[in-house]
């Protein structure tokens, strides 16, 4: 059996069996997460997995059972992740959310976790519908997209990537649950980024949103998917293998020194260009093309803990000596309040 650099097998990254509907896109994402963390050689006991409420938010039980998980309340995963991250930044955080959890009830916390640039991987399993309550529209359902009972959605869609870029997220990507290769590369790159790394993964709901006319069905996505780049993730100090002509290749250095290589597939896109990333998303709405790949990337912004100027010792590991200012301080304070 193949092992990674920690001598762990892929089974060491598994979770409990999924209880989602058979064929759910979310299970493909779970598998991609397992593969990516296995390949990266992350110690699964150090990972913290966070989620809100909904079908997507159940999935952290399905991967990396050796890591602590926290299934919190609806739309509030970002705040719980922020708290855990300031408390102990050494634990790599992965959050899994859905389109209702992020785009509707949780839109406020989503924008603010982006604004703070909290160091975590934030995966949105986006199917444009409320699965667990049986098929209501979510805020990411496209305008005109019919629900299962046939009523067209009268409201425009909130694009989770566009709002994240606007709010200050520093790594924003979109993928499709069926594109395993791209998804694994993006998850690995997101892990290596220091700051908020959002991957909005279109993940069709087989039960409530996979019918003709829905813009988040398997058939629709397969027809309209427009990959931005082919991504190849290369960990630090390993040789970069790319069989491409110069000029076609763009290599991006990530915070941990590893590199992300993008192969352009026809469309010219510079992920450091915020305006063109937004234009690409908005144009996709008009042309009905699903633009996938790394849309925006800014490695220059400090992450939340850097902004807070936190000490290198995680706050959870401080001892009495660090915590107790001692009796002299009280004496001085008393003297200053006379």
């Amino acid at each position, binding site marked *: 059996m193949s092992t990674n650099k920690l001598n762990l097998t892929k089974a060491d990254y598994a979770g409990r069996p999924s209880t989602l509907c058979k064929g759910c896109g979310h299970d493909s994402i779970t598998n991609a997460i397992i593969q990516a963390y296995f390949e990266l050689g992350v110690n699964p006991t150090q990972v913290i997995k966070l989620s809100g409420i909904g079908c997507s938010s159940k999935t952290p*039980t399905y991967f990396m059972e050796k890591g602590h998980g926290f299934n*919190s309340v609806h739309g*509030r995963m970002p705040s*719980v992740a922020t708290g855990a991250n300031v*408390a102990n930044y050494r*634990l790599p955080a992965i959050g899994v959310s859905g389109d209702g959890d992020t785009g509707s009830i949780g839109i406020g916390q989503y924008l603010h976790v982006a604004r703070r640039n909290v160091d975590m991987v934030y995966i949105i399993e986006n199917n444009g519908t409320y699965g667990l309550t049986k098929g209501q529209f979510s805020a990411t359902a496209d305008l005109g997209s019919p629900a299962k009972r046939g009523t067209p959605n009268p409201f425009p869609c909130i694009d989770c990537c566009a709002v994240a870029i606007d709010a200050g997220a520093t790594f924003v990507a979109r993928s499709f649950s069926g594109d395993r290769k791209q998804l694994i590369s993006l998850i690995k790159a997101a892990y290596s980024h220091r700051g908020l790394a959002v991957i909005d993964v279109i993940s069709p709901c087989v039960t409530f949103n996979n019918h003709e006319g829905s813009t988040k069905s398997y058939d629709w996505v397969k027809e309209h998917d427009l990959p931005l780049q082919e991504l190849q993730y290369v960990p630090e100090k390993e040789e970069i293998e790319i069989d491409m002509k110069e000029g076609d290749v763009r290599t991006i250095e990530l915070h941990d020194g590893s590199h992300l290589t993008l192969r352009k597939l026809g469309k010219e896109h510079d992920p450091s260009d915020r305006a063109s990333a937004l234009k690409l998303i908005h144009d996709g709405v008009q042309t009905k093309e699903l633009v996938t790949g790394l849309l925006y990337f800014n490695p220059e912004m400090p992450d939340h803990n850097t902004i807070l100027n936190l*000490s290198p010792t995680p706050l959870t590991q*401080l001892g*009495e000596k660090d915590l107790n200012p001692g009796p002299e301080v009280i004496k001085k304070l008393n003297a200053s309040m006379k």
Partner: protein
Amino acid sequence: MDKIVNDFSIRVATVNGTGSQSSNNILFKTLFRMGIGACGKNMFPSNIQGLPTWFQIRVSPEGYQALRENDDIAILMNAQTAHQDIESMRAGTTILYNSDVIKFEDKDIKDGMFMYALPVETLSRKISNPKLMRLLKNLFYVGAVAVLYGLDLETLEGVIRDTFKSKQKAIDANLEALHIGIDYAKENFEKKDSYWFEKANCSENKIIMEGNSAAALGALYGGCTVLAWYPITPSSSLAEALIAYAKKYRVDANGKMNFADVQAEDELSSAGMVLGAGWAGARSMTTTSGPGISLMSEFIGLAYYAEIPSVFIDVQRVGPSTGLPTRTQQCDIMLCATASHGDTKHILLLPSNIQECVDLAAESFNLAERFQTPVFVITDLDLGMNNWVADDIQYKAPKYDRGKVLSKDDLDKNSDWGRYLDKDGDGICYRTLPGTNHPKAAYFTRGSGHDEYARYSESPHAYTRNVDRLNRKFQTARKAVPKPILRGEASAKFGVIAYGTTDHAMQETLDRLQDKNVKYLRLLSYPFGQEVHDFVKSCDRVVVVEQNRDAQMRQLLELDIRGQQDKMHSILYYGGFSISPDFIERELKEKFLN
């Protein structure tokens, strides 16, 4: 007329945003430094500039920290409220007023009122820096008070110097304004009333401090490392004080912070951050007021059910809804005791004074970690935002009790570990912290149904076992929370119960009722320990005195101590100012001690 020395009340009516707070604090601190037993309370609007504000100073030889109902001297600088203010003053009191903007007619002035007219606007033209005129003119009444009632000038000037520290220009400008007031009063006022300040020794080993600063200090010493908060009156100054302390006392050798302060986007988020940090193993807290607790209730339920240590400091203000945001009440008792949907109950800590703000804020982190649950420290606007004259803060070496946490080595020895397995029979289970490098360390934290091994479960048996265990944990907490304090003879049959800031008025009331056989139990916490049960049972009648309409603590007592309802009574004040001993004394005499 006999002199009345150091035993009277002054009301200062001004307009907010005009520098009056600074003048009032100078006056208050001068009294403190003269050793006079002073109590000062600010009654301010939810506004930055232009609305009426009152500052009340009471002096007493005992140094009582509660206000009386009536004032003896009114300093009226605000034309908007002057007529109402004089209307509320009794015959024979003293009125010092800004005669440039306030005109009283004969009918306004009651028998024997002593009137001192201070032409503030006219005098303000004497201020050499016209830009500062508006902010400095409030010092005129300080100067007038100094002359009329005998403030020690050296002390007063010292306070002004200390207030503005090294800003010589500000010191000079303030001293100039002060002396304009002094000179005018000397030349024009003839002492007619009988009130006098005289140096005393009430301030020995005392400090002036706000409860919010004290609670912040307690949190610092209690080992808090994560503060997530959203600004709300009257709790914001607590967060700001804690941040200021952390910037001084939680910095490592390289200038990095051993403390995280996150100003969240709302109260929901601040509660979520507190839980995330508590789950990860940091001592984390938020500070808020009633409206914030309403918003945080969802997370409070999660913390209760998933058993996450977390501290919530609630500085109460007047509800419901926005209510009176700058007025005080004890109206969140029931809210905090049962915050969230479903069957929940929480540990409450109820400080009354500055030292207890320090002690209970510090202790809240131990209780939160020992019991792996939300703990509420409940103060109020009166305690939090007013300047209290209190005993010097005593340093009590903090103990950091992290509760039942299993390390990697513990896990090696422990063959059967379940996150929600009650091994010790006290309802408190063992937890592991995220990042514990052991294959058995991880568990899944969730707000949905779970069994002893933290597995998702909808089993009625697992659910019932779990919530019954949570109840058992709460029973264990009864013995661990701070005990109530008894005053009076244990054999007395008439008892009063109070908590929080009501204590100050209650203690003074009991001083006045020494001939009556009344015993008093002051609550410091919930759940109620055996002492509270015994107290209630030992009385023929119990009166619970509190500052809310619905007798919230009494309801909680009645729920907890079954079969005693018939003997339980209430005295309730909920107008938004702090409760006075005059009110309690009158109510007790009229309704219970006649």
